[in-house]
């Protein structure tokens, strides 16, 4: 524990966590500071913190507060406390809410079951010191670099009922035979998910490639000397050592599933079949019905789910770091 408390700049910093990391030589650092240095330090930590907290955390808190009110957005006196009414309405009588939740869940399940293992598979293959590994990597990673908006437009060219690649190839682009990949509510979510998976696989491949670089080659050698085949080595030796990467991959995939927005917005603005929580929130701002309290209630649902993932992850990460 640090001993000196008089040198902090308290107004900017959140409450100190008791029993945090040992001070190491930081007390030595601090003893040498002049008054001016302390002001400089206060500003260096304070200005970014104020900006971040004001725009990210205070607005998140405001979302929670507004979720219990109704407000037409004109003047502060029109804010009325309504308790749980927004949530009650959301859970019981909004025809889009439960489909949206379901679609977010499907989004996550598809991403974690298909492109994620495929990305891992690609990473394992490309990690074998084969020729042209870089060229392959570039191809698979390209979709991650291109913006999701562009991705949406590119895939529309594939899915267009009249002129699209798929319908042209299978002969479904004639009247009476149309397959409406984007308009049909039974199909469109899956069509968007193909595009999302296309992007996700490359992202996962890069994360796993970095993870695989950290696997001790001696481990693998020992395993193959023991007579294990490639699959057994992977299953028993490589995969268990990828645990930290798997955690990151899981968190990234959950967050991506909660954030999903751009692709769907470009495809069909979240019309029937592709409702998502993020789209519902946005429709309550820029859509025809601007219901601030109601939109905030949906945001709170998103917030609660995200924090349930983010907080345990970060606590585990930082605890490990402190031990290191």
């Amino acid at each position, binding site marked *: 524990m*640090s001993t000196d408390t008089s040198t902090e700049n308290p107004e900017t*910093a*959140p409450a100190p*966590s008791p029993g945090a*990391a040992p001070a190491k030589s930081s007390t030595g*650092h601090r003893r040498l500071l002049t008054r001016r240095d302390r002001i*400089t330090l206060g500003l*260096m*930590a304070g*200005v*970014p*913190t104020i*900006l*971040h907290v004001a*725009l*990210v*955390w205070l*607005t*998140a808190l405001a979302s929670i507060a507004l979720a219990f009110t109704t407000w037409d957005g004109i003047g502060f006196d029109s804010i009325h406390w309504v308790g749980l009414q927004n949530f009650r309405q959301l859970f019981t009588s909004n025809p889009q809410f439960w489909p949206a939740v379901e679609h977010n869940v499907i989004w996550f399940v598809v991403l974690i079951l298909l492109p994620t293992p495929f990305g891992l598979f*690609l990473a394992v293959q490309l990690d*074998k010191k*084969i*020729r042209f590994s870089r060229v392959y990597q570039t*191809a*698979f990673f390209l*979709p991650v*670099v*291109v913006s999701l*908006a*562009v991705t949406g*437009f*590119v895939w529309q*060219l594939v899915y*267009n009922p009249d*002129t*699209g690649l798929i319908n042209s*190839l299978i002969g479904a*682009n004639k009247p009476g035979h149309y397959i409406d990949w984007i308009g049909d509510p039974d199909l469109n979510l899956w069509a968007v998910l193909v595009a999302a998976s296309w992007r996700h696989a490359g992202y996962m491949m*890069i994360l796993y490639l*970095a*993870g695989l670089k950290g696997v001790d080659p001696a481990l693998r050698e020992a395993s193959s000397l023991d007579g294990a085949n490639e699959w057994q080595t992977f299953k028993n030796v490589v995969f268990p050592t990828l645990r930290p990467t798997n955690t*990151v991959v899981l968190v990234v995939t959950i*967050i991506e599933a909660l954030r999903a*927005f751009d692709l769907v*917005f470009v495809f069909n603005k979240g019309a029937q079949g592709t409702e998502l929580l*993020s789209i519902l929130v*946005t429709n309550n*701002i*820029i859509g025809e019905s601007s219901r601030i309290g109601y*939109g905030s209630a949906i945001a709170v649902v*998103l*917030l609660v789910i*995200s*924090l349930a993932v*983010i*907080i345990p*992850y*970060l606590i585990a990460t*930082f605890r490990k770091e*402190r031990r290191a």
Partner: protein
Amino acid sequence: MSHALASKQRTPVRPARILLHTFLVVTALAWLAPLLWALLAAMRPYSETSTKGYVSWPDKLGFDNFTNAFQQSDMLHYFGNTLIVAVPAVLLTLLLSSMVAFYVSRFDFRLNLALLLVFTAGNLLPQQVIITPLYRLYLLVDLPGITMSGKLYDSALGLVLIHVAFQSGFCAFVLSNYMRSLPHELTEAALVDGASVWRLYWQIVLPLCKPAMAALATLLSIWIYNDFFWAIVLISTGENMPITSALNNLSGQYFTDPNLVAAGALLTAIPTLIVYFVLQRQFVSGLTLGANKG
């Protein structure tokens, strides 16, 4: 062809390797197919594709659609909008997050966990969680004479601020990890010699962080360039939108046939592709710098 080359220098060709390369070539082509399909559509005249259909042998390939899309929609203007937002946002994010990282990694070990937690968790939140109050806040803040709209809403400044606030979480996390790996004696000695804290930061620590800063700058440029959501909600005038978000309005208004849409979309992707091909290593290392720490 790859197997033939491989066999010369490496271990003798094994059937497994040939199979692997065949698989990778086929998959890589399949992965590029949507983009190549868009490229093909963009290079063919609309008159040809409308009579022959899109799956047909191209008689004429050219860049007419690209020049038309670029000129008709005044794309240059929207690229300019992006530049006005992205350049200050990237620089400010790096400056602010490196300052926080410096403080956290060098000085206060009691606060550093809490502070870093706040920043990192903030960056992981879905944007939609904060957008409703943010939108209202931007409408409330009056800035007569400072922004064109007189408010934070519908202004480049507003976009810069939210990008900086949001992205500094990730950057502070990555940079503080990086700075912590620098030897402590380095700054300690300079302090004993009477160097000010600012000099310590600006002349000793920052230059040593160049690799991490370069990686983050590449990553941030692409992320901010690719942003769609903030501008869709926080910018109301179509004219003021950065290129990625403007694409949504331009298609339909100017990009009236699929060939023009393809050309417009690909033109929008070009800057990111250039950055990616030139700075691929930076981009990938930036992405994994943060992730590997998990």
